[in-house]
């Protein structure tokens, strides 16, 4: 086959492997070369080239023997939040620099069981806390996309920015990320890729470095909706090691991609028309509505009255859980240690040196909202608001099959543009956070370009464990949009 093996997405590469038009070693080598060529993007923290080639050879042997799993021989990029056995796992933090887990996360173990090949571990916001990938100890990731006629570097979104960039720049056939408040869908929207956050409980959290336990969920980041369907099936499972995992069979999501949305009822939540939303995003949303209507779906205006409270409630619940989840990074058993005379000194110095500014901010906010005298006003109130948000969705889903919204209120912004304003940074997630708060699945599909040439995404939200429907609707939008724009490969040295 031609040299441009990296142009093959997951489904295409799978089919090419099956037809023996290409080997996994060839594919893997092509991607490793692309990664090397793309170092300016800073998408990877660790590249596991030797490991990848060895796995590719094993995959080729299985394919030759007529065996092989759902994603046999397909090269993947893994967010560096998934613990990988004997391979450095940093969570984007200095405090975990050099940490080599002695175990494999359930999600990645599922991928390897299905034949996946790991190219490396992708960059992310520190402990997945961020929406721009600028909080990583290992440096910002650059979005492959730039504004028309402008050479300024843009953020890829976050926290799964390295994975999004890897998919967008064709540094991997597909990637996986995690989504706590939009960390898969928002970077997907910023990089012109597909990102799916499954229902909470669909993918195991075992072995994924925890940010906010009641919100974290792993999911696929791909070039197409079909690829997302393939990858989700490979990574999802019920896991008896995760008490919040749900024992529901994993369907073959690819069969849901019927291209037919006739008779589906699609809700348009009025509350997502936020103040100051750019007109091109509003126009894209209207286009999406029109595509679905003309494909035979029924469009229904709906109301989710507590939407505007989702984000402030999120910024109580997530930091509170994080403040507790990150207490284990204390310099005793793994990771960074800054010695002190006494144990308390060691703790304080290790954590001061090991965590970056945004992580510290969130730990302190979380500590504050849980502390004596404030718990009821903040944490308890936020969890009650969460109940109301969930009830809003439940009511609406009695009448509709899915919801259509924009994924983000703006396209990608410049590196450094928002770092000094935490709240404007937080507002990035205003459209993605409600689904996390309610535990519902959502997918972002690239659907068009902004006036200055940047990708924009539309989001489809669904009922619990009904990933099949959002994939079906997402694919319909993908077809209608026929989004085929690509970033210029300005980063390439060759």
């Amino acid at each position, binding site marked *: 086959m031609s040299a441009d093996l990296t142009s093959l997405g997951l489904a295409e590469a799978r089919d090419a492997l099956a037809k023996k038009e290409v080997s996994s070693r060839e594919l893997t080598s092509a991607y490793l070369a692309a990664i090397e060529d793309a170092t300016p993007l800073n998408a990877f923290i660790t590249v596991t080239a030797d490991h990848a080639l060895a796995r590719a050879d094993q995959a080729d042997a299985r394919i030759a023997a007529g065996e092989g799993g759902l994603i046999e021989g397909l090269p993947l990029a893994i967010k560096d939040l998934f613990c990988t056995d004997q391979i450095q796992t940093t969570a984007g933090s200095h405090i975990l620099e050099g940490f080599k887990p002695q175990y494999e996360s359930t999600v990645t173990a599922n991928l390897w069981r299905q034949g996946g090949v790991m190219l490396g571990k992708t960059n992310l916001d520190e402990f997945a806390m961020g929406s721009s990938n600028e909080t990583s100890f290992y440096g910002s990731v650059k979005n492959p996309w730039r504004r028309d006629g402008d050479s300024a570097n843009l953020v890829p979104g976050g926290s799964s920015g390295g994975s999004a960039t890897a998919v967008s720049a064709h540094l991997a056939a597909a990637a996986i990320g995690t989504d706590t408040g939009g960390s898969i869908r928002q970077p997907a929207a910023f990089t012109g890729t597909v990102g799916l956050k499954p229902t909470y409980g669909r993918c195991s959290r075992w072995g994924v470095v925890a940010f906010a336990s*009641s919100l974290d969920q792993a999911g696929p980041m791909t070039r197409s909706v079909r690829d997302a369907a393939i990858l989700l099936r490979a990574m999802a499972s019920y896991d008896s090691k995760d008490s919040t995992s749900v024992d529901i069979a994993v369907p073959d999501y690819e069969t849901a991609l019927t291209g037919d949305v006739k008779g589906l009822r699609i809700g348009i939540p009025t509350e997502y028309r936020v103040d100051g939303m750019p007109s091109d995003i509003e126009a894209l949303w209207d286009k999406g509505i029109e595509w679905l209507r003309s494909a035979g779906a029924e469009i229904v205006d709906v109301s989710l009255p507590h939407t505007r409270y989702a984000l*402030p409630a999120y910024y109580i619940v997530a930091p509170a859980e994080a403040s507790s989840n990150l207490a284990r990074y204390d310099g005793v058993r793994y990771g960074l240690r800054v010695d002190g005379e*006494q*144990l308390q000194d060691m703790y304080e110095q290790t954590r001061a040196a090991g965590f970056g500014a945004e992580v510290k901010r969130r730990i302190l906010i979380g500590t504050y909202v849980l502390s004596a005298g404030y718990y009821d006003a903040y944490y308890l109130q936020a*969890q009650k608001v969460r109940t109301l948000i969930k009830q809003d969705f439940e009511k609406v889903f009695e009448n509709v099959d899915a919801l259509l919204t924009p994924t983000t209120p703006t396209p990608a912004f410049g590196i450094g543009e928002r770092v000094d304003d*935490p709240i404007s940074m937080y507002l990035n997630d205003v459209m993605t956070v409600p689904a996390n708060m309610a535990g519902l699945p959502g997918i972002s599909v690239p659907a068009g370009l902004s006036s200055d040439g940047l990708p924009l995404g539309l989001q489809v939200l669904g009922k619990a464990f009904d990933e099949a429907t959002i994939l079906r609707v997402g694919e319909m939008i993908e077809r209608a949009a026929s989004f085929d724009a690509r970033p210029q490969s300005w980063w390439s040295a060759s």
Partner: protein
Amino acid sequence: MSLDKATVAHIAMLARIRVEDAEQTVLAGELSGILGWIEQLSEVKTDGVEPMTSAVDTTLLRREDKMTDGGVQEKVLANAPATTEGFFVVPKVVE
């Protein structure tokens, strides 16, 4: 809600993060800003609303009482900054 320097120092102590004096002032401003924005939650009427306990509708999984784990001292200690004779080593704890 505005948060003063002393409160920052207190929560930093609870969180075991050393925050130098000058940094405390900066953080007090930043955190006050964030908390002020979060404040809007108090508008929501939540009388009689149960707080969410989990995003999933399922029951707590219970495992059997079987010895299925442990016996992996080398894995437990593999990443430790300091160990001796199977123990983790830390600076002296004063009781």
